[in-house]
């Protein structure tokens, strides 16, 4: 079932053509991978869905969600969807969490705003969320601040914040790129499990094809603001339709060296 459909998305910032007609379907319970080198427009695609594009942006095309075109919504209507139905996890958890607000405050303020929970209910929900992302001592963690956690823990907290209001669509923008190699697999694994449990439609952005092959159901490849390839994971990895994908695959660190499957992820996690 299609949860969110991006059709012919174009983006111009000032004079620069950033996106030139991006098409992507996100399906409930499935992970749509989005690969491509730095600067190809992956982050901007995610931000366009969130309605968080930089100033002076001109967008075209449609992003359909629940029968409505997100690009045509008022800022207010968009604000009501953001965080509650469409959520985002950003690349670097050391900068995406507020350094001077406690984890508890950051986990509960949108719960209280969107779901109108009272203080106690929001707190209980926050503890439950931290448990689900496997933060030790969740009740104590609420009083602590971002700098008191490790990188992997911070990203888990960011995931908990994103999933707090039970969204249906999750955009994960390179959620493991800024993390230690040793914790990448754990965070990826967690995201995959939660997405499965909650029936989330996930857009998983990464420029790491190894990561991609480990978790994505479908894989799209972007280049210069265009999707050049989109298909089933096995099809894309075994028989890429576009020469650019083939060259990307060939550049993987040793055809067998990278993380290629979920089994590899598990192996990494255990090592």
């Amino acid at each position: 079932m299609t949860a969110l459909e991006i059709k012919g998305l174009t983006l111009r910032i000032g004079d620069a053509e950033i996106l030139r007609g991006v098409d992507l379907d996100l399906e409930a319970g499935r992970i749509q991978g989005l690969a491509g080198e730095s600067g190809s427009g992956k982050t901007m695609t995610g931000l366009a869905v969130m309605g968080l594009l930089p100033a002076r942006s001109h967008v075209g095309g449609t992003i359909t969600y629940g029968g409505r075109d997100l690009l045509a919504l008022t800022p207010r209507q968009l604000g009501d969807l953001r965080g509650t139905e469409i959520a985002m996890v950003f690349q670097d958890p050391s900068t995406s969490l507020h350094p001077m607000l406690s984890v508890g405050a950051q986990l509960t303020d949108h719960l209280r705003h969107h779901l109108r929970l009272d203080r106690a209910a929001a707190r209980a929900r926050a503890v439950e969320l931290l448990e689900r992302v496997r933060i030790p001592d969740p009740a104590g963690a609420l009083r602590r601040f971002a700098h008191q956690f490790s990188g992997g823990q911070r990203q888990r907290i960011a995931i908990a914040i994103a999933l707090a209001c039970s969204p249906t669509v999750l955009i994960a923008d390179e959620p493991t790129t800024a993390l230690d190699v040793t914790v990448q697999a754990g965070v990826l694994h967690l995201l995959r499990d939660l997405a499965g449990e909650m029936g989330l439609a996930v857009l998983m952005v990464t420029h790491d094809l190894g990561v991609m092959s480990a978790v994505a159901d479908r894989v799209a490849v972007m280049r210069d603001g265009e999707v050049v390839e989109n298909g089933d994971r096995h099809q894309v990895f075994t028989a890429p339709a576009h020469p650019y994908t083939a060259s990307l695959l060939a550049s993987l660190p040793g055809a067998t060296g990278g993380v290629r499957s979920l089994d590899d992820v598990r192996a990494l996690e255990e090592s």
Partner: protein
Amino acid sequence: MRPLVSSPLARYLVRRLGVSALLIVGVTLVTFVLTNLVPGDPVAANLGQRAAENPETVAAYRAHYGLDRPLPVQYVTYLGNLVQGDLGESQQTHRPVLTDLQSAVPATLEIAIGAIVLSVLIGVGFGVVAAVRRGQLADSALRVVSLVGISVPTFWLALVAFYVFSFQLDLAPGSGRLAPATTPPPHVTGLYTLDSLLAGEWETFGDALAHLMLPTLVLTLYTVGLLTRFTRSAVLEVLEQDYVRSARAKGLPGRTVLFRYVLRAAMVPILTVVGLAFGALLSGTVLVEEIFAWPGLGSYAYQAASHLDLPAVMGVGLLVGVIYLVINLVVDLLYGAIDPRVRVQ
């Protein structure tokens, strides 16, 4: 050996106090050296030229104030008395410097506190508006306002305000803290507004407030300009941070993002400037008090300096140094309260 104090905060405070005490001694030394190394002659400055020509008068004067002894002895004597809470006697008012300061400080605090509170409210407010409306009309207008604010000579502004509002329009009372016919309220804090309220004297309160208005507003303009400019750039910097984007991604209303996420982070650098602004205010009082005949620290400092009244100058320097150190301490403690990363471990 067990440490004398156990809590980290207390230990930090004790260390800060130690450093502060050293700085204070340094301040007295600098004032002392500065006022003695230079060619000015306090005897002539205080006795007048005629009396200064009579050697006997001069000798008596010097003996009275201990000026006949060698400088290091004078300084050590001063420090010794200081420890006992004796700041010496003013060569000009012939009263203990401590007594003079006790009456001058509340007068100045009454304007300075009002001015700093107003400045922070207005300046931070303006700065936030300018940042949020960056590049729009409001931003340009506030840019002009703040530019004028930091460029206007305070003494001239005071004079013009006095001329227009008191002299021409009669909207504000004249100089001083109260109308000549009003008797000061019973002394509790020395702040006339507060004391008159405590005593329930409404008319006195109204009069004191009316007299406060102009000097406070005049002092406020410069610090408003300073804070507007600084708040604007601090907020603009925070607006670009990732965590602000995260807050928006959570669907929080713009107002919540601004006050809860942006301002909290911008407050840290802004606080530093508020501390600086308070220093600027104290400097400004010297000029403003002169014009409004306000019997505060600024007037006292000016009288003391222009008559080379050494004990009084030392007293003012000491006091202002203490105020400066207290402000720095408060600012640093507030940092800790706002930013958990700098909290003492």
